[in-house]
Each structure stands twice: as C-alpha cells, then as structure tokens.
C-alpha cells in the first residue's frame, strides 16, 4: 500500500513537472521570436527567462502578475497564446528604454 502511494506521488510529481516544463517552453518559444532574449529554449526556468518575460510584460503595460515567477508560467502562457498574441508579439519587436533625465527616482 505504501509503495502504491509512493508510486502515485511520483507519478503526480512527474506529470506536474512535465506540465511546468511545457509552460516554460511555451514562454521561451514566444520570447525567441522577440527582442527579449530568454537564452536556450530548454523548458527550464532560469534567470534569463525570468528577466525577459518580466521586461516584456513591463513594456507591454501588463502589471499583473507583479513579478512573474516560475509558478506563474501557466497563467503567463495562457496570456501569450490568447487573443492578444499578435499585438504582444508586435510590441516585443523592439525594446523601449525610457528616458530618465528630469525624472525623479
């Protein structure tokens, strides 16, 4: 019985990991077509992926989730694949660096 529970637990963990990897891949594939470099498209959530997707959402004016983390990958992937996909891709063609002269920190 204990073995069976362990097996089910391992199965759930591996399915969950696979889903998570798929969502990260979804984000990385999207980023690879933009000016926001996420590094390798390998399904692993690293610093580059996190920085790139946060910067893209900043530029597009999407403020939720506030700071995107790995746990948000499914939600973010849904946004990237949704009705705003085309305009998001277009907005991510280039990076926009705000002018800070005369602005208060």
């Amino acid at each position, binding site marked *: 019985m204990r073995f069976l529970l362990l097996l089910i637990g391992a199965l759930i963990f591996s399915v969950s990991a696979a889903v998570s990897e798929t969502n990260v891949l979804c984000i990385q594939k999207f980023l690879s077509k933009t000016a926001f470099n996420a590094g390798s498209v390998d399904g692993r959530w690293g610093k580059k992926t996190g920085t790139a997707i946060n910067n893209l959402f900043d530029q597009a004016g999407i403020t939720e989730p506030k700071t995107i983390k790995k746990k948000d990958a499914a939600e973010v992937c849904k946004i990237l694949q949704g009705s705003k996909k085309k305009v998001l891709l277009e907005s991510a063609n280039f990076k926009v*660096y705000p002018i800070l002269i005369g602005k208060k920190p």
Partner: protein
Amino acid sequence: MLTRRHFLTGSGAGLFLSGYPVHGFTKEPVDGRIVVILLEGGMDGLLAVPPIGDKNLFKKRRGLVSSKALKLNPLFAIHPNFRKFSAMLENEEASIVHATSFPYTGRSHFEGQNVMQTGLKDPFSSRTGWLGRAMAIAKITGKAMSLDSPLIMRGATDYDNFYPTHLKDVSMKFNWSETLNLIQGTHDSDASNTFDVLGQKQPTSMRKWKMAHRDPLSLAEKAGHSLREVDGPRVAVITVPHFDDHTEIMEASEHPEKFTTIDNIFASLRNKLQEQWANTIVLTMTEFGRTVKENGAAGTDHGYGSAGLLAGGLIKRSSVIADWPGLATSELYERRDLYATIDYRSVCAACIEAAFGLDHDLITEQVFQDKNIPRAYTHIFGGLG
C-alpha cells in the same frame, strides 16, 4: 535601487498597447507633417548616442566617448552638443532609435545613399524614393530644400524645390543707383522715366536685404515657415553633408560641429512650425554607421549600424528604442561594426503611418515592397515603455 519595473509603475506605464489602428486601406485622414534630415556621409551613432551601459564601449573606443555626455538611462547617453534635442527628450517630444540601419551592408556611400532614399533592398533598383511613393498614395504635397529633386521624394505627384541663389549679402555688392542707371540706359521715354521715379524712392530696407542662405539651418527655417502654412507642403527634406570623418572625428570642426547643426535644425523647426509642431515628426537618417574601433587617424571608417533621432509633437513619450546587439567582438557585424538589429524602414513606415494615416501593411507592400518589415508605430508613437 530603482528597478525598471518600479520606475514604470511610478511613471504610470499602464498604456497597454495603445495606438493600434483598425486595419484597412487607410485610417482616418491625418494632417501630419514629415521632415527628413539626410545625414550624408555616415553618422557615427556610437559617438552621438554612446551606449555607456555596455562595458565594451570604453574598451573599444575610449577616446571616442565624450566625457560630458548626458546620461539618458542606464544604457544610453547623448553627446553634449545635442543640448536642445536633450530638452525635447526630457519634454517627451523626442526619441532615439539605436543599432539601426537601412538593409545595406556594403559600405559604399553611393549605394548606401541610394538604398536609404529608395527604401528598397537592392541599390539602383528604382527611380523613385520611399517618401515620394508614400506622398503619391496619400496625395501629399512636399518641398525639397535643394536645387535638384532628391531621389527620396521622387515619385510624388506634387512637390517643389526651394534653393536660394548664392548671393550671401546683397547690400555688400548691390549698388541701387548704379544698377538702375544701367537698366535705364536700355529703355526709352516713359519706361526710362519710371527708373527716375524708382531712383528717388530707393527703399531704405534695400540696404538690409539679405538673400536666404544655403546652409542647412537656414533651409530648415525656410522649411518650417512653409510647413506651417495652411495650404503649404506637408513634407520637407533637408540635407546635412560631410559626415564622412575618417580622421580626427572628435575635433570640434568634425562630427561635434555637425551634431550642433542637427541640434539647431530640430530647434529651428520646432520654433518655426509653431502650432503645427504638434502634428509633425522630424527624423534623421544616414546611409550607414561607422566602425566601433577608432582607426589609426583618430577617426572611424564606414560601418553598418547607427542611430536615428526623431522629434515632433506626434511623439507622446520619449525613449530609446533598440534591440541592443552588444559591442563584444563576437557580437559585431563582421567583427567590426555595430549590428543593425532594427531595419530603419520600420521607423520610416511608422512615421508615414503617424503623419499620413496610411496602414502599415499598405506602406510595407506599396512603399517599401517588403511585407516583412516589422511595425514600430506603437514603440515610437503609441506610448509603449
């Protein structure tokens, strides 16, 4: 520490993808104006807008970074001679596009200038210019501030030229009485008497007459006057030559002086256009950038990527737009030039869209004959960032 995210939150960056048009043949008619400043010879974009946040900048061209450059944000600064343009940046009416070029990598002035003006990939493949074709579609009038018709404007159905004679100061050479006597000598009776009357009525203002000058700044002032007229032209092209500084590029008389000229042109246009400045976009363009490393003569040679400066009331938020490629040797084009990651035709297309109200797809297809040009309208005019 101020992060980009905090800054954006504080500056009210909640404009989610604003400015997208309804796709179709054209949008609502726009009464916009375009002024193109052609920088002939290849402007050094890294000298004009140094990427101070890229550590390789100082490794590769330490002697070519002005110590008085004004920091715009953590990555970019601007040469101090762009003082008035910097004020426009601060006032949210100017932007910069960096690491950009027309799709030409051959480093020939003749070919590069041809591609810049035709807007087509192959040099010498058209007798018309991208601006002229856009004007023809939108039925826009224009004015070339040159003696000949610049290629960029050819193809338009309604435009004229303005270029003054070379007389700099009439009062120095023009003797009213002597001239009238000479002309009078060729006339008889009544006509001759007319010159007697004219001789007595010599206008005092005559002594102060000055013919318009040919220099780019004077031409810009004239263009600004014309563009603000209700039924006047809506497009003007001004040329600033001699950017090909292979030696002593930092000397005051070389690139820095030309930066001042560009700066004054922007300011003059803003001043002369008055209320029409709100409907205007002014953009610079150059045929290519210059090498990242300085050559043995303290200058730079023909390169690839450069920078474009834009100003006008049609801009709602200032920014530097770039997909920065980096300055490490492995990141350079042919290990020597700044990579151009933005096709400058995207910028031109966005300006046409903003000023003439034409649809992006129509512009790319009929003006630039290339459907793959990315849309930059939202980045430059839509308040992104």
